[in-house]
């Protein structure tokens, strides 16, 4: 099973590759300017976090938006890429009321498949200033929230596209590996 990781400039992007390898998938870093055509044959795709704000322009994100919109394989977006997915699916990205740095507690509203087995509440590690905001007509459902952030996880309504605001790839998110495993199971289908 091959699941590449799109490097969006974040510090933890390489940890995603490491975590995917540890759960038995093959993975490598690819750049955001990789075309959708070049991704033919992959089983899924993870997009990493990064230091940018979606509302400051999307030119740095290469083909990421197009891939989110057109790809048929499952996609998991983390942090910045979660926000990018939120925007692609009709939501809005705004500066959060309170930033989250370090430990946060996430409450599951709808486990769907991606949050299976993590419990109704779990501890995560996050690092973000921006967040996704629901907008009328948006084509995603909200799977989880925290005290400070309304949308900690989301899923596309009509496609297997997922976003998590927190970092599943770091060691301080104890259930992170389970969520990535859930994602790889979705990629097998």
């Amino acid at each position: 099973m091959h699941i590449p990781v799109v490097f969006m400039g974040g510090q933890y992007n390489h940890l995603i590759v490491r975590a995917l390898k540890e759960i038995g998938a093959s993975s490598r870093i690819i750049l955001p300017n990789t075309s959708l055509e070049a991704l033919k044959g992959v089983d899924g795709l993870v997009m990493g976090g990064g230091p940018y704000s979606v509302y400051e322009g999307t030119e740095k994100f290469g083909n990421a938006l197009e891939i989110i919109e057109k790809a048929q394989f499952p996609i998991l977006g983390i942090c910045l890429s979660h926000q990018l997915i939120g925007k692609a699916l009709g939501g809005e990205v705004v500066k959060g009321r309170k930033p989250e740095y370090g430990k946060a507690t996430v409450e599951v509203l709808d486990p769907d498949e991606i949050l299976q087995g993590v419990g109704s509440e779990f501890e995560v590690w996050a690092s973000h200033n921006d967040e996704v905001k629901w907008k009328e007509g948006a084509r995603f459902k909200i799977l989880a929230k925290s005290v400070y952030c309304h949308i900690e996880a989301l899923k596309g309504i009509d496609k297997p596209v997922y976003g998590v605001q927190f970092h599943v790839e770091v060691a301080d998110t104890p259930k992170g590996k389970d969520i990535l495993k859930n994602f790889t199971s979705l990629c097998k289908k």
Partner: protein
Amino acid sequence: MPGSNAFDPASFVEEKVEEIRVLVGSGRAAIATSGGVDSTACASLAHRALGGKLICFFMDTGFMREGEVGEVVKLLSLLNLPMKVISAKDRFLKDLEGKADAEAKRLAFRQTFYTLLGEAAREEGCDVLIQGTIAPDWIETSGGIKTQHNVLEQLGVDTKKTFGFRLLEPLLDLYKDQVRALAEYLGANVEASQRQPFPGPGLLVRCIGEVNEDKVEALRVATKVVEEELGKLSPAPKQYLAAIVEDDRVPAKEGAKESVSGVLKGAKVEYFKGLATGVKGDNRAYGKMALVSGEAREPSEIFDLPEKIVHNDGEVVRVLYNIHARMPATKTGKYAVIVRSVETRDFMTVKPTHVPLKLLKRIAERVLEEDSVSRVCYDLTSKPPATVEYE
């Protein structure tokens, strides 16, 4: 538990030994090692590949811990490496004089380090420099979090042109825990693989703001106390260290005191004038260090303080809890010593260790025996928003 792709030191060594031999060719190579895990594992690996064609340099920057120079020389002699010490304490102090900004200090350190190393390597006829850069070093640097002293090519520095050597970095894809596994696999390195991580610029990046000989000496003494006392904890924390800053403070942003009064009786919040490095939302942050004083209603709740303080003021990157200060009447010292202890797998994210307050108080009493120190505090901040080191 780990899948088929888990890190395997044996095949890693086999692959890299071959690669190093091919890349060095018929020439000679130098390696700079600090005695830390990364560079010691790397030296050991390079020695396997090159034997007598490798020369090992140890740079005495003057920012080493007490007794460290002797210990490192001893450790490296056990590896049977031809070894040379470059004594450069005065040169570093001179080149850093008057610099208070963290990045300016790191850049000056790097320039002096590689200039001296390049000179020494050329004298020995080496044209290749091998170094133990690992993944978090270049990830942080290319992300602009902070300039690691050993990251050059990823930043577009042409080492051949600038410093006169080709650079080889065999550990570039490894994380800290993998490097430890490698060091252990390479044998005779158990001591090195269990040492506390110590950055190349050493005490310099824990000496917040301008650096001078007295300040480094006070930090050296505090570091010894902290390593002795926290080393006794079982299980031992992943990393523990001391940092130092002038004990000059300004009032905190309005609302800070109220935000923590639920946790502390008689709460008081101030900011140090000195700034420190952090990381927020994948961006480098160079911001304020808050000093919080007061009696904890419930000791474990002091670890909730950072979130409250940072939410009150987004410019804060560190939250320090006051352990002990001299009474103003007897105040002789001018420095605050910061104790830091963290738990982590790979140093990409960290949590503060829940060190018992009683132990922190004992550390404070011992550190305050040093006349130049007026205060001791404990760093409560995770990464993010702080980093492990201070600059």
